[in-house]
């Protein structure tokens, strides 16, 4: 957790201020002992209940229908197109984070998959040894030194933080494709994105069901998983191995009864 607030080394400050980042920098707010800052918990829990209800009534059944009716290769093709459509935004963020190697690879991925991959239907680039890497503006802000701020669960979108919510809005606003597609094409890209998410919901249904429906407290479990995984990704984006950052819990040194005492 970023406890201090270093200046943003590459960021044009007026833009950041215009985005209202100063409001969410959370510098003054120390994280609690378990590394979770959730002052909005009552509101978040309400949103979580609605999200969970939406999943139960709409998303989960729809993903089951999609996964059962539509053959796997077709679903994969749709998801590949969605991934390809995401690439311009990913490249922008990787450049902003000075991850030039990955930005270059992703630019090549875009070129190869859009052409040889027939408009992104086939992920030829991965076969050719150009691995997919991801980036978003919330991550970019983190690399620039912005703290994550309080946890928020967003309607429909799900777990996030104040910083990542700003990132999400910026990603939507600065998506280079906004200027490419309009009208029916824009609707089609939205549909593709939606189907890709349904496919994710279907493929990882065991995992997601176990969190949402088998946990004693699905809200707390989801919050923990999101924050830990997110911090790990950010540590990696910053160039770390992702292994050092507060992962270590020493059960042997905690203030518990020693089970080996006798």
């Amino acid at each position: 957790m970023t406890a201090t607030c270093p200046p943003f080394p590459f960021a044009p400050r007026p833009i950041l201020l215009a985005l209202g980042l100063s409001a969410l920098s959370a510098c003054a707010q120390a994280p609690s002992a378990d590394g979770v800052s959730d002052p909005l918990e009552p509101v978040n829990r309400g949103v979580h209940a609605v999200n969970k209800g939406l999943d139960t009534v709409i998303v989960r059944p729809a993903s089951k229908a999609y996964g059962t009716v539509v053959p796997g290769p077709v679903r994969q093709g749709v998801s590949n197109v969605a991934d390809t459509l995401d690439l311009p935004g990913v490249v922008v963020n990787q450049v902003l984070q000075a991850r030039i190697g990955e930005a270059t690879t992703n630019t090549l991925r875009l070129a190869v998959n859009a052409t040889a991959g027939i408009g992104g239907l086939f992920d030829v680039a991965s076969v050719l040894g150009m691995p997919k890497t991801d980036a978003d503006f919330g991550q970019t802000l983190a690399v620039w030194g912005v703290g994550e701020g309080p946890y928020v669960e967003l309607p429909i979108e799900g777990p996030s933080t104040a910083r990542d919510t700003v990132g999400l809005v910026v990603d939507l606003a600065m998506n280079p494709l906004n200027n490419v597609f309009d009208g029916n094409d824009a609707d089609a890209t939205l549909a593709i994105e939606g189907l890709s998410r349904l496919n994710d919901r279907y493929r990882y249904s065991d995992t997601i069901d176990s969190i949402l429906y088998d946990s004693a407290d699905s809200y707390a479990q989801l919050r923990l998983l999101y924050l830990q995984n997110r911090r790990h990704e950010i540590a990696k984006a910053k160039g770390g191995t992702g292994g050092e950052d507060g992962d270590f819990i020493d059960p042997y040194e905690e203030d518990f009864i020693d089970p080996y005492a006798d």
Partner: protein
Amino acid sequence: MSGTFVSGLSRRHFLGTGLAAAAALGAMPAFALSDAEARALIDKAVADINAIINSGRSEAQMYPAFEKLFATYADVPQIARSALGPAAKTASKAQLQSFTTAYQGYVSRKYGRRFREFIGGRIEVTGARPVKSYFEVISTAYLKGESPFEVRWHVSNKSGKNLFFNIIIEGVNMLASERTEIGAMLDKRKGDVDALVQDLQRA
């Protein structure tokens, strides 16, 4: 739910995939673990797991096999106490004992359910290093149709044997997750450890 979050989960695949692979670590001498030894042991464990999964037995029949792996190679008493959290301090000895037993079965069923996702997969150890008072083994899991993801094993010999006490998959920490879950279950029972034990036996 968030698309990015979901794909993050996919790589993590929760904790189920590697639990029994960690099992192999238990047999090693104190901090004399080499990359090659760990790799060989984990490969062997993965082969054993696949044998169980592909045995054609029902999931319910597989649980005892996974429970045995867990009991042999993980420091179950320590993991159980950590999961129980502060309540472990006030619980009686008998309560702790029955909790530990119930927890071991519960964990084996919970993660055993996820082992079918492991069919056709493998784990490769890429490194091992001493950190603070324990040993961290770093590995990469390759599952069919998934991007490879990182699995870290925390191993200690403080129990007198080399046993693993935590697994971290793409940053997600098993002990922390278990503590949240068991804490929530205990809250539902208003702190009654005996009632919690009964819930665990049924879960």
